[in-house]
């Protein structure tokens, strides 16, 4: 079965320090992977995606993610965290096993990032 896991409920980091939000996946074949961010009482915003090509994907707001096929991971990173990065982050993977007529995404449970001044 296709699945995605975010092993940390919450990540705490000091402003200015690098941040990593972890994501691992389990799919058959090559994965399509996505990261989203959700600020309080708002919808999810698309940050970046990996389909193929360079393992390091750059996205919005200075975020990047590294695809690691051997570790089946797609961790979200940022070199220097801002207080304004505090939000809920979701990893997602396309479910190629689904045949319902659209490109179904499976979302992780979310990781809350808290950046402290």
């Amino acid at each position, binding site marked *: 079965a296709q699945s995605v896991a975010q092993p940390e409920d919450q990540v705490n980091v000091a402003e200015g320090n690098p941040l990593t939000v972890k994501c691992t996946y389990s799919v058959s074949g090559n994965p399509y992977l996505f990261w989203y961010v959700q600020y309080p*009482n*708002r*919808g*999810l915003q698309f940050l970046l995606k990996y389909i193929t090509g360079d393992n390091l994907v750059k996205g919005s707001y200075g975020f990047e993610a590294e695809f690691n096929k051997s570790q089946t991971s797609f961790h979200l990173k940022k070199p220097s965290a801002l207080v304004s990065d505090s939000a809920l982050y979701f990893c997602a993977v396309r479910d190629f096993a689904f045949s319902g*007529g*659209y*490109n179904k*995404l499976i979302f992780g*449970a*979310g990781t809350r990032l808290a950046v402290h001044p």
Partner: protein
Amino acid sequence: SQTIHQWPATLVQPVGSPLSLECTVEGTSNPNLYWYRQAAGRGLQLLFYSVGIGQISSEVPQNLSASRPQDRQFILSSKKLLLSDSGFYLCAWSQGAGGTDEQYFGPGTRLTVT
């Protein structure tokens, strides 16, 4: 550019009352449309998706229904709300067949059933 609207932004309804939440998308045609529910500010539960006008598929059996009367309009309804229907409802769209996979979300509706 494409935009997605949801209304109302917040709603407080008594148990047993009807519900109608609306979602519209601008700047694209033939989108796939989705309704999600998010409980307690965490995981997303896909409720309904639609690949075309009048075509609705339900992911989980529940007290809710969805309709797509126009290409870029998606409505979530209930005849009688339950306490368990409280939550944050998100509408999303993605490109249709042959398009890219990412979904784009609306601002959400916070529903409180009292």
